[in-house]
């Protein structure tokens, strides 16, 4: 027997569940299929567990400051078993929250493995049961699969994936982290804060504006993370620990540690969910979609890691909402131009918009300013004076083209930057409004003021007035 459904969402990760909830809000009858746990990799294995680790590391580092202020506590130590139960409890709580939301919106949730049988039929296997569904619309939100560099045995107890690294039961003495994006930096910085000696081997350069990259490297070095960029790993051997031979611009080198963490790349896995049975148009191994998530097959939509672009929950969530809106008759658009990039190290990095180099390559004549957090009073009293804010703007019009920061509170502060970029703000749009005082927010205002050399709290101007 074939059951009929209006909208089926395949995958209950952040993209899928946002799509299901938005479609339900807009009056659609929605069926969500998930083969594992609701929340997907983000909630259960990736973002949330990693943020628990980075938050824990960051708070652990604050103990010296708190004691200095007069907070009396004993000698701090780390109980990873307790952290594990805290993490599990939090993940369970968040997952229950999402499940509750789905229930309250009347979304039918089916636990099972979905497989497209044709362009409008899906089979769902759940244990020994197989059910057949005919749908009007389907959103493919199956996420990606992690791919690791070949030639390295993942069987070794000393070689871990980034997800395994988040749940280690003891602090490794010597950690080597190999990666290509923010995940590697976060793991390296977190374990350094918890006491590991860390070597970070980055595949490329740090993917940020050069000023931020410089400051990141300086702060990581200060936290005893040795950073080597543009690295190719030649060989890994393990014998009670790991020995990594690599090549970089400095030549061939070797580094030893107790553990090696390999950070994978998220790729679309089109062999799953019977996608290979559908004549879907693809590009670069991912499903090609328009600005609202339509694939080349009418009635089949795709969002998240199976579509082109970075494998980030932030993108999947936006795409899920837009696709659901489009199915319900709204006109939406996914525009990732001002997608913020975040690294939850301590202090965190948060950037939106174009780097100085990118803006120049796009044909702009740019003016930049740099403002250190040490000039901000509130950061001073918190003893969180590391880092800086860099503003990239167009000469003559003062149109803001990029906002880049590393420093305490940067992740929250960047929202103002993203809003400004979306509104096509110019310098005055940032400097005119009233800012809470005292607060880190003022650092953003003064960084923009510094475009004309008018930052009040800078004793020595880094740049003369340029406009």
């Amino acid at each position, binding site marked *: 027997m074939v059951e009929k459904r209006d909208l089926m969402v395949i995958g209950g990760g952040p993209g899928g569940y946002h799509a299901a909830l938005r479609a339900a809000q807009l009056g659609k009858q929605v069926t969500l299929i998930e083969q594992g746990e609701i929340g997907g990799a983000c909630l259960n294995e990736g973002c949330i567990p990693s943020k628990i680790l980075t938050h824990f590391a960051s708070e652990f580092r604050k103990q010296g400051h708190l004691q200095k202020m007069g907070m009396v506590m004993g000698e701090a130590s780390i109980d990873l078993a307790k952290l594990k139960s805290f993490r599990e409890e939090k993940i369970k709580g968040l997952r229950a929250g999402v499940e509750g939301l789905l229930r309250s919106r009347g979304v039918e949730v089916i636990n099972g493995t979905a497989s497209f049988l044709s362009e409008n039929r899906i089979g769902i296997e759940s244990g020994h049961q197989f059910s057949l569904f005919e749908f009007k619309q389907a959103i493919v939100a199956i996420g990606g699969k992690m791919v690791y560099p070949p030639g390295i045995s993942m069987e070794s107890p000393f070689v871990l994936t980034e997800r395994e690294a988040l749940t280690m039961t003891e602090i490794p003495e010597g950690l080597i982290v190999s990666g290509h994006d923010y995940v590697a930096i976060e793991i390296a910085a977190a374990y350094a804060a918890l006491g590991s000696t860390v070597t970070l081997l980055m595949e490329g350069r740090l993917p940020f504006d050069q000023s931020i990259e410089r400051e990141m490297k300086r702060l990581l070095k200060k936290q005893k993370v040795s950073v080597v960029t543009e690295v190719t790993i030649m060989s890994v051997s393990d014998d009670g620990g790991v020995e990594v031979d690599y090549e970089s611009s400095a030549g061939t080198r070797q580094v030893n540690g107790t553990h090696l963490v390999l950070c994978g790349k998220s790729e679309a896995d089109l062999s799953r969910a019977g996608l290979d049975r559908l004549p879907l148009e693809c590009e670069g191994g991912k499903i090609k979609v328009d600005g609202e998530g339509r694939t080349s097959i009418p009635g089949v939509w795709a969002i998240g890691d199976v579509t082109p672009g970075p494998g980030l929950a932030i993108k999947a969530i936006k795409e899920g909402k837009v696709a659901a809106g489009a199915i319900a008759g709204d*006109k939406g658009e996914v525009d990732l131009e001002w997608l913020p990039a975040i690294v939850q190290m301590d202090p965190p990095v948060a950037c939106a918009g174009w780097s100085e180099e990118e803006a120049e*390559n*796009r044909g702009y004549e740019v003016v930049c300013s740099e403002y250190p957090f040490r000039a901000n009073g509130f950061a001073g009293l918190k003893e969180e004076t590391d880092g800086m804010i860099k503003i990239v703007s167009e000469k003559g*019009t003062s*149109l803001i083209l990029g906002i880049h920061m590393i420093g305490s509170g940067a992740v929250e502060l960047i929202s103002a930057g993203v809003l400004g970029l979306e509104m*096509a703000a110019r310098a005055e749009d940032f400097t005119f409004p009233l800012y809470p005082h005292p607060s880190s927010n003022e650092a953003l205002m003064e960084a923009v003021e510094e475009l004309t050399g008018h930052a009040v709290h800078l004793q020595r101007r880094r740049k003369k007035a340029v406009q």
Partner: protein
Amino acid sequence: MEVKLHDIGEGMTEATINAFLVGVGEQVRADQPLVEVQTDKMTAEIPAPANGIIKGFNVKEGDTIRVGETVLIMGSGKASTAAKRASSATAQKTRIMASPFTRKLAREAGIPLEKVRGSGPAGRIMDEDIHSHLQVEPPPQETPVRTEADSIPFRGRRKQIASKMVRSVRTIPHCTHFEEIDVTELLAWKRDVPDVSMGAFFIKALSICLKEFPIFNGRLDEEQECVHLQHAHHIGVAVDTEEGLIVPVIRHVEEKTLKDIQKELKALTNKALNQTLTVKEASGGTFTVSNVGPLGGSIGATPIINEPEVALISFHKTKKRPMVNESDEIVIRSMMNVSMSFDHRVADGGTAVRFTNRLRDFIEKPGILLMEMI
């Protein structure tokens, strides 16, 4: 030095920028293609008028501009290091000054923001700009809303066709006559030469008729008070595309074999469908053929002459019909109607009838065509 969009074909008034073939700061040589443009009929490249450096673009890819508008600025001398840094094809400002709410208004109205001129500070696009743009240029309806009437865009190629048709009908006193032709034998003949289409045969037969009736391959020059009888038979073939009617031209049909014509007809039809015709391939016709038979259904029409030509002929659907033969028997024959419109200023009905009679003879007895082959 300003490089402008110039008239690259008959009657073109505007073109869309398809792609830039050079980047800002790039050194170019005279005649080097700079920009590819798409008119309503064809794609063409605008070449560099002299050696120099590309200083900047005044238009964006996708823009539709009018003849005479400046496409890019060129300077003399060699590219500087600073210019080289920005020489990639993406080195153009891409920031559109509009808030998300304004962008949503544009999205819902189906207006590309690139086409809206901002009236706000520093050219910022305001909500009012979207509203006023809508009044000036209503957007194409992707999914027409059921109101009292549906509307579809009347721009680009459709508008170009319209103005050309109006001009033709206003200028030329059209006269159309009809004929029915028995194609039974031609169909039998074609079975032996499957590589040649009926269309190619008609074009060849027409060319032979034009030799005998050169008036229909003429061009009226009222100022000089004469009709230029052209020797070359450049036969235009009307192609029905999604974007509208396009007429690629098979040149010098009088010198070509049926096989040549067939090959060229196929290639040009494909180019017309893919919108890759060049200026030369879609202009300079002396006589036009419209073969609507493959579409089915039509038994007659009053086609409008592709001015400044003198005549145009349409071939309609072939149908089996009961006919009376010379022995007064009713026989089943494959019959096709043709409609021929001609300029009554330069030819009369009698000449036109004789022209189609001759054509009919070739089609009804394909063997006769052999007698005329060079």
